[in-house]
């Protein structure tokens, strides 16, 4: 209810869904086996698809560049396994559309050693070099948005950055990937922070962690005191457990008390924020000149047998992954990401991509859709919306198709679709679902005019 709770600072409003993290948060990250055929879509990020640089029948080694960035808002792709390029063609995607990509037939029993590339030395490299290295390593926001990281880091010269925020909140229920990365890869995170501080010019970094991971915060704090890292101007801050605390705007509000302006960017309040797993990948890959070809995901939920955190090759077909972890017979609903913002699956033939933070399966009657009632004006959604929008009124306007009015008068486009309104609605009105549609309509209109 208030900005400050016993657990630590936070933002106003928000919700408290069950955490459901205990089952996987203690499980170390394990390497996932290689699928016989990998599907690497050329667009796994926001922006322009990558351009393939391999041809059919060509042999590739794990970690080898297979597609290069095509323009500024685009990143490279690397081979997730040693093998042979089966074909360049269309493949199913999460949107339900067929998208272009690269099929790789992996070599069974090969060593799957990753090749070293040209390292990006922290001291020798310029800011521009580091940005190019990040783009060349194919790094995007691993929290789920999959926005190219080098674009985010390219701060306008007239907007000095005073704080780099490393986002280790992970507020989505079930997901524990960032948790495990913070436990297992503190060195990579700190190395990543060094690169990020240099690129952004920020004088300090704050690692933000939710109060449900106090022991992680404590271990990072003590690790920072070690001689190897004591020169890093970074601190670890604990924020209250509340959803969507991990949203960039909410975390900045909690840590610094600053509000990113409506329609603005964190740079407008002198902040750049980067997900902690993304930071760890920068620290892990850049010193070796490697590219991102696998990521950590949580596979969990009541209907999964082998729950856990896995380092999984990007391009692993979901069907292969599910066979490996095993699903309960009563499985009824599966989705990629967490239960609050995770994407529904149109097909099990789609691959794991860079933006996939988890795979969750529910069984039986869990999360079954309930009948809709009329809005009774209870105000639960108004008290839940972290951006202080009026979801009730937006919902009524969405129902009558007044999309432009929603955008013009009620800040529809600020909505980042956290789903808190739908979560609390006792009338079971699909609020955020309608807002997604309305936003798409508004964007379409804008593109036309």
């Amino acid at each position, binding site marked *: 209810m208030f900005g400050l709770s016993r657990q630590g600072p936070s933002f106003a409003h928000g*919700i408290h*869904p069950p955490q459901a993290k205990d089952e996987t948060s203690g499980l170390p990250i394990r390497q996932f086996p290689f699928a016989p055929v990998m599907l690497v879509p050329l667009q796994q990020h926001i922006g322009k698809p990558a351009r393939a640089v391999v041809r059919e029948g060509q042999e590739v080694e794990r970690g080898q560049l297979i597609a290069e960035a095509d323009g500024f808002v685009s990143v490279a792709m690397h081979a997730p396994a040693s093998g042979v390029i089966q074909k360049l063609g269309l493949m199913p995607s999460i949107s339900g559309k067929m998208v272009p990509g690269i099929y790789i037939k992996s070599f069974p029993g090969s060593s799957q050693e990753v090749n070293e590339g040209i390292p990006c030395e922290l001291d020798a490299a310029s800011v521009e070099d580091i940005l190019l290295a990040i783009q060349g390593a194919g790094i995007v926001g691993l929290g789920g948005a999959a926005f190219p990281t080098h674009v985010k880091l390219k701060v306008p010269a007239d907007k000095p950055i005073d704080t780099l925020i490393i986002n280790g909140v992970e507020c989505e*229920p079930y997901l524990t990937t960032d948790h495990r990365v913070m436990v297992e890869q503190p060195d990579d995170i700190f190395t990543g922070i060094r690169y990020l501080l240099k690129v952004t010019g920020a004088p300090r970094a704050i690692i933000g962690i939710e109060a449900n991971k106090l022991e992680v915060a404590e271990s990072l704090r003590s690790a920072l005191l070690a001689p190897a890292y004591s020169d890093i101007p970074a601190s670890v801050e604990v924020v209250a457990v509340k959803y969507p605390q991990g949203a960039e*705007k909410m975390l900045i509000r909690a840590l610094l008390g600053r*509000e*990113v*302006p*409506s*329609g*603005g960017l964190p740079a407008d309040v002198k902040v750049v924020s980067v997900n902690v797993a993304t930071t760890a990948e920068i620290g892990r890959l850049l010193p070796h000149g490697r590219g991102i070809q696998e990521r950590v995901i949580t596979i969990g939920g009541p209907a999964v047998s082998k729950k856990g955190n896995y380092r999984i090759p990007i391009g692993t077909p979901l*069907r292969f992954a599910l*066979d490996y972890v095993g699903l309960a*017979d009563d*499985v*009824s*609903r599966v*989705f990629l*990401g967490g*239960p*609050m913002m*995770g*994407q*529904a*699956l*149109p097909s*099990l033939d789609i691959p794991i991509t860079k933006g996939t933070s988890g795979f969750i399966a*529910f069984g039986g009657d869990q*999360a*079954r*859709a*309930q009948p809709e*009632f*009329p*809005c*009774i*004006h*209870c*105000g*639960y959604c*108004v*008290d839940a919306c*972290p*951006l*202080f*929008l*009026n979801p*009730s*009124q937006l919902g009524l306007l969405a129902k009558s198709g007044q999309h432009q009015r929603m955008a013009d008068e009620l*800040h529809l486009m*600020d909505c980042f679709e956290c*789903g808190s309104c*739908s*979560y*609390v609605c*006792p009338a*079971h009105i*699909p609020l*955020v*679902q309608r807002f*997604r549609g309305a936003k798409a309509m508004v964007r379409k209109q804008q593109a036309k005019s």
Partner: protein
Amino acid sequence: MNKRSRTLEIHTSPHIASGASVDVIMRNVVFALLPVAAFAVYSFGLAALLTVTVATASCVATEHLLCRLSNSPSTVRDWSVTITGLLYGLTLPPALPLWMVVCGGVIGVGMAKFLFGGLGYNAFNPALVARAFLQAAFPAAMTSWTPAFAADRFSSIPASTLTIPFAAPAYDGVSSATPLSLMKFDGQFAASGDLLLGLTNGSAGETCAVLILAGGLYLAARNMLNWRIPASILATVALLSEALHLVDPGLYPPATFMLFSGGLMLGAVFMATDMVASPITSAGCAVYGALIGVLVVVIRLWGGMPEGVMYAILLANAASPHIDALIQPRVFGTRRG
């Protein structure tokens, strides 16, 4: 996956929900009202039992039949019309002729709820509209009060209760005055202890402030009632009436009397908090409550009638959409003001 084929549901996020549900909220309001109704029967006997039962039944039946007539599924299972019926019954004089009770129920649910579009669309609290209709149509019957705790209240039914439709009701015994009418017409103020515990005359369910407050606390604790509404109403009434009492203690009653007499408690806790007819923001609810508080004091002390809670809430219901239009939360990242 395995050889077996499975059916998977495809939904967009979120994939979990808080578990709150409209019918659960409504049912809890009914639970919170049951002790109040029980006390009404305890203090007014069979008369109150019949009045509250017939009021509830007429409201539920009206909604059910209207849904059937309009070929839509019956909505009585969302429990909202049960609240309307109970509340409506509790605001009536206990020995009101039953045919009038039915008339009010049909008018309230039919006109104030169904015609507006049903649950979620009623601009006014249907229970109060029903009562307002009766107040206008049968002013004499609506101000004839049976005494509380009559010795024969469990053995005999008042003659007025069973009046034949359209005949003038006969009141056996002396019709007794309520604390508010004594205040208004005789300048007497009842003891606040009696008011708190419900030992006075009045409408069936309005007399016991303690039970009403307990129900309100239960709902507020479960976040099924916006506590800012009753808090704001009661604070406004207390401040305003105490100030007036200090000016002229003979003419104006003390705040304790104003708070615990008449329908204020029942209205503040259960009527004004009708989610549909009250503002959606908490700040709006505070303003709405203050408006009701001012209107109650003005009508009670300077109006022609002893009680003003009903009209105060109905007027504030009308203002509610305008309060919503004026008071919206400041969107994150926009400038204040």
